[in-house]
């Protein structure tokens, strides 16, 4: 049995809005093992980013537990949390807005080291910055450059170097390549993979790009309106999707080959509102297979096969 790095139990994040309570993350549970990558996919507004941020307690959860290496981080004090965060880092989507435009690459990478008092000696900090730049593949001559002088790929490398500065064990990658061109995207994905092998990192990889997640993740969780509707090892999920939403999602991926004969499942209808959702399957209104049953109760996430979890009332019949 391999070691579980992160365990999330019944995590909820609700926001009050003038029209009611918005269920951004609604009862999400999962575990990630050491050295593995959990891909979290879903469309905009499904709560994947909020889940990632709540795990790091950048957003306070409404309820639920986040257990990291045996410690429940939702119960930590501010000071304890600060120490814990050194081991859990975040890589942001947009390398254009996540870096301070007035800081050079040196300052950007040194900042977390100085702030957390990892190193205090000036020379040691400088050496560490250069070492980190080398790890993420930034040429040493760029050390005095400002973010606006760098292209998107290099900026994202700076973001990764900053995350690595604390020797983290776990990194939430929130759409790390979505803002990049494909040729650069592949460079960054390869870098993240190398770092995982070299440093034994565990990733939670949030993305809307299914081709990327299939390539990158060991396990995949599909989210829809704040809930996980299906979770399985990547290969299993792509070969044998069980939830009607996952099926539609996978069929909608445009494949860069000619003569594809994949039957597109075009979803009709609009997405339910996440504000005060009723106790029913949240996908039922767009689902091709919905029956009365589906509108009665939120289906639970059930393990239908080893490692393959689905939340669908009709999953048994539809297989």
């Amino acid at each position, binding site marked *: 049995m391999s070691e579980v790095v992160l365990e999330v139990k019944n995590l909820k994040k609700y926001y009050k809005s003038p029209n009611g309570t918005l269920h951004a993350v609604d009862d999400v549970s999962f575990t990630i093992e050491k050295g593995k990558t959990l891909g979290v996919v879903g*469309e*905009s507004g499904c709560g994947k980013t909020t889940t990632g941020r709540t795990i790091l307690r950048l957003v306070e959860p409404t309820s639920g537990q986040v257990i990291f290496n045996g410690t429940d981080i939702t119960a930590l004090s501010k000071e304890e949390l600060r120490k814990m965060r050194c081991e859990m880092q975040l890589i942001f989507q947009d390398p254009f807005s996540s870096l301070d435009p007035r800081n050079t690459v040196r300052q950007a990478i040194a900042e977390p080291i100085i702030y957390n008092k990892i190193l205090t000696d000036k020379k040691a900090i400088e050496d560490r910055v250069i070492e980190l730049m080398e790890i993420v593949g930034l040429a040493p001559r760029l050390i005095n450059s400002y973010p606006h002088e760098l*292209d*998107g*790929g290099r900026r994202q490398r700076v973001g990764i170097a900053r995350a690595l500065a604390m020797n983290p064990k776990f990194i939430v990658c929130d759409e790390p390549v979505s803002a990049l*061109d*494909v*040729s*650069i*995207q*592949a*460079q960054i*994905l*390869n870098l993240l993979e190398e770092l995982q092998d070299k440093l034994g990192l565990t990733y939670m990889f949030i993305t*809307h790009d*299914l*081709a*990327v997640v*299939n*390539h*990158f993740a060991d396990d995949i969780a599909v989210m829809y309106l704040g809930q996980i509707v299906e979770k399985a090892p*990547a*290969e299993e999920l*792509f070969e044998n999707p069980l939830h009607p939403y996952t099926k*539609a*999602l996978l*069929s*909608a*991926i*445009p*494949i*860069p*080959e*000619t003569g*594809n004969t994949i039957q*597109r499942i*075009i*979803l009709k209808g*609009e*997405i339910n509102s996440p504000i005060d959702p009723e106790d029913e399957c949240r996908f039922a209104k767009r689902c091709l297979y919905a029956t009365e049953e589906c509108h009665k109760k939120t289906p639970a996430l059930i393990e239908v096969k080893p490692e393959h979890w689905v939340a669908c009332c009709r999953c048994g019949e539809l297989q």
Partner: protein
Amino acid sequence: MNKEYVLEIEDLTVEYVVEGEVTQAVTDLNLKVEAGTTVGLVGETGAGKTTTALAALRLVPDPPGTIRSGRILVCGQDIMKLSQKQLYNVRGQDISMIFQDPMTSLNPVETVGDQITESIMLHEKLKRPQAWEKALEMLELVGIPRTRAMEYPHQFSGGMRQRVVIAIALACNPKMLIADEPTTALDVTIQAQVLDMMKKLRDQFNMGMILITHDLGIVAEICDEVAVMYAGRIVEMGTLDEVFNHTRHPYTEGLFNSLPNIKNREAKLQPIPGLMPDPTDLPVGCAFAPRCRYATEACKAAQPAAHHFSDTHFAACTAYEDPSFRIERSKDRE
């Protein structure tokens, strides 16, 4: 058979001059679009795709941009020679454009019905009630119930907003439509809906279309021809089958290799090393040579000539001076 071209671009060169520095955005570009077909314009950020599109509507912001040379025929009319007033008529009526972000291309303080009506009244001699009625028909055409015409853009989801933009663009039945990354801001399931709809409308109105995208998956889905742009030039062009299955240009190959393969998750990604050259300082020779694994000294010396592989397929690559040259991707396939 005589082909009906709704857009012809010949030897287009567009420059931007900022603080005395000349940025070569598009260089010697030739492109023709036939009625009822779609040409995919593919390339990375800064390749000149959007500038090409803007030039086709004579919308390149001037200053700093200038159309240095070239001829642009929209439905046979040379738009470089038209007056502002004539241009107003051509835009919207003959050629129309959809922009990437539906949020910024709609007016937030006007109902969607009014916005469509406005564009109809500009081009067709209709009274307001008739124009309004036509606007409602357009909404239905793009799959939005007519009852929602009195609503404002913020009341719509992203996918529906993009459909409103499409309704505006198509309101006057243009013969040519340029869609600049029309689905990039949308989720995949919604993207599938919108692409499906665009395909149907193209066939229904026998429109010519340019689809600008960086997503080769979308190209495979709806394009008949593909033009791959790099640093302001078309480096490879051909039918969908030619470019995808008989790829000739090393850059096109690089794009394919960078994509995660959905059918083989173990396949290693092969990024294109390096970066696109600075457009203010383009090399004398092939702009892709510094990143190209097949590059030789000859590539750096002069602009590569176009090598034709069929009537429709060419690649601008010096390596084909040697007739036996093949890139790796085509070796596997032929």
